[in-house]
């Protein structure tokens, strides 16, 4: 039963189903088919992963000229590097000759990258400096000026967060982030700047990337999924403990929660220590400070797959909750396998004691060994396995919570805000954005090459 009379051919799957019918976001019904279907996955590669803006890393990870980290832009491997002039660049991690990976470590400091295969050598700004056996090429056979490493189509940063896209026609990062910047400022710009602690944790989960993504805008799983912590008294024994605050739908499918904690001063202003609270008042507007004052926890998604988790928790019985800022990325490896990236960020001005407490709390509670996070992965994997069968796919998943709840017109910030922090309006907005991207008829790869 198609809701569209005559969808264009690119919007129809091989069995005749319309993409539009799989994501009935306005009704809160999402087909299980979208999560782990190989055909959907292939379409996502062109329509989402070759098009959207993706988080590559933070400027503090590559502070010195020549600093380099291996990352992914969309699903393509890239080198994120600061060149000798201090310019941050990102290139496809693949030699122009046979396509060998030119960077084969996770991080290093380099002036040149030499391809192991035939020895082609690139400057850290991407230029091809030497190829092998150059005198064996005839006139016009080797145009080194045209054979530099392939740069991402656009690269830009906001508050030190570096994003890139493979689509030269994508809107600028500034336009893409749009009114989400207002909320990014509260989280990463709050005290004048954050920095990454060390290197990210990376691990693979046998899940559709979308079940992981879905979980990052979901407050109401906590009481059940993390019930072991309720049992231990490390989370309130109150099913509504994370139900207060606002859910906000920003532009381009970006979404977030600002969630209240216990009604004490400790849980105000993201739980940050006093010296950082003072900085917040310098760097945020009074309106933003007031939002942060009512907020202990925040989860946000820069569409499609980059998240922040600003949380207060404890990894140890009897110890008080400590705030930390976790940055997260899911990179799909296949329809049913996803690489998780997790960074700890701290305020540049944070005192050593706070850094240590924040770091230990983050590692103990989040990441693959975290006493919270490890249970989430169990859910995503089993949701994925259960989405594979032909019968299961006839029955859509349920995303209806708060579907009739009106927009809170009194909310002073940008975007559409809804009162309460339990609801699925942010989920539905994310899936609606997914549908919008998946219904675009773009041959981005061809255009990218033509634009070079």
């Amino acid at each position, binding site marked *: 039963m198609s809701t569209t009379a005559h969808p264009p051919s690119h919007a129809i799957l091989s069995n005749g189903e319309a993409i539009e019918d799989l994501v009935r976001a306005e009704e809160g019904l999402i087909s299980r088919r979208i999560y782990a279907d190989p055909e959907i996955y292939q379409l996502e590669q062109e329509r989402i992963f070759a098009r959207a803006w993706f988080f590559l890393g933070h400027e503090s990870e590559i502070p010195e000229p020549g600093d380099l980290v291996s990352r992914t832009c969309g699903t393509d491997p890239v080198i994120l590097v600061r060149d000798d002039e201090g310019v941050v660049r990102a290139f496809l991690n693949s030699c122009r000759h046979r396509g060998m990976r030119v960077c084969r470590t996770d991080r*290093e400091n380099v002036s040149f990258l030499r391809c192991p295969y035939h020895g082609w050598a690139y400057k850290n700004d991407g230029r091809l400096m030497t190829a092998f056996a150059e005198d064996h090429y005839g006139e016009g056979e080797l145009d080194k000026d045209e054979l530099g490493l392939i740069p991402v189509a656009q690269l830009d940063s906001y508050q030190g967060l570096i994003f890139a896209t493979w689509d030269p026609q994508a809107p600028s990062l500034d336009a893409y982030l749009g009114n989400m910047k207002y909320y990014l400022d509260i989280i990463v710009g709050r005290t004048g700047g954050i920095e990454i602690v*060390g*290197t990210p944790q990376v691990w*693979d989960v046998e899940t559709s990337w979308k079940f992981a993504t879905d979980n990052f805008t979901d407050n109401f799983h906590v009481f059940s999924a993390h019930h*072991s912590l309720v049992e231990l008294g490390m989370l309130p024994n109150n099913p509504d403990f994370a139900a207060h605050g606002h859910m906000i739908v920003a532009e381009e499918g970006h979404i977030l929660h600002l969630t209240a904690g216990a009604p004490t001063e400790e849980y105000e202003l993201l739980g940050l220590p006093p010296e950082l609270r003072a900085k917040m008042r310098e760097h945020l507007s009074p309106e933003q400070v007031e939002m942060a004052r009512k907020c202990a926890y925040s989860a946000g998604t820069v569409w499609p797959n980059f998240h922040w988790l600003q949380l207060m928790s404890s*990894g*140890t019985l009897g110890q008080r909750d400590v705030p930390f800022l976790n940055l997260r990325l899911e990179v799909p490896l296949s329809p049913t396998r996803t690489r998780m990236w997790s960074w700890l960020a701290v305020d540049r001005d944070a005192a050593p004691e706070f850094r240590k407490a924040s770091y230990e709390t983050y590692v*103990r509670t989040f*990441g693959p060994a975290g006493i919270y996070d490890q249970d989430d992965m169990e*859910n995503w994997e089993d949701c994925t396995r259960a989405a594979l069968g032909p019968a299961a796919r006839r029955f859509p998943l349920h995303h209806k919570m708060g579907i009739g709840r009106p927009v809170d017109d009194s909310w002073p910030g940008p975007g559409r805000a809804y009162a309460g922090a339990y609801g699925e309006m942010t989920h539905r907005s994310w899936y609606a954005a997914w549908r919008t991207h998946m219904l675009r008829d773009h041959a981005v790869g061809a255009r990218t090459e033509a634009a070079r």
Partner: protein
Amino acid sequence: MSALGRRIGDPAMTPVLPHTETYGRVLEFLHHEAELLDAYRFSEWVELFAPEVEYRMPVRTTQFLTDGEGFHDVDFFVDDHATLVTRVKRLETEFAWAETPPSRTRHYVANLRLQEGDDGELAARVNFMVTRTRQDLDYQLFTGQRLDRLVRADTDAGFLVRRRTILVDQTVITNTNLSVLF
């Protein structure tokens, strides 16, 4: 680099050779510990750790050997005794879903190299392998090297672990999560 130094051995300590009683007792302790983990006897397992224990698993990256072995000051585990007890108590609830129903694990320790300091502290290096199966799924494998500092103790097990550094071989943990203990 510092990790590489630790792996080669502490020059201030004396090798303890396999035919000695100390070596045999430490090996038995390590086997006992592995058996407790595989038998879900976590509350007995955690009693093998000294109150001041530091239990860490640093994150590893792929780097050139000239840049070191790739271990970082960021960890997958950064636990003290109270945190290990918290993990154990969590596993004992009915709601620790990553291990409920539980994984089946086998902990193997091998290649024990043992040294003793003047103060009686023992440095035990082993290669470890942990296999895990969950539900009806295929095997998952965790391997690496473990660096323990042990002290003799008046307990049934005979020793307490006062420092454990778990050096995983993987840079990307390809096994869903680290809900098993090492």
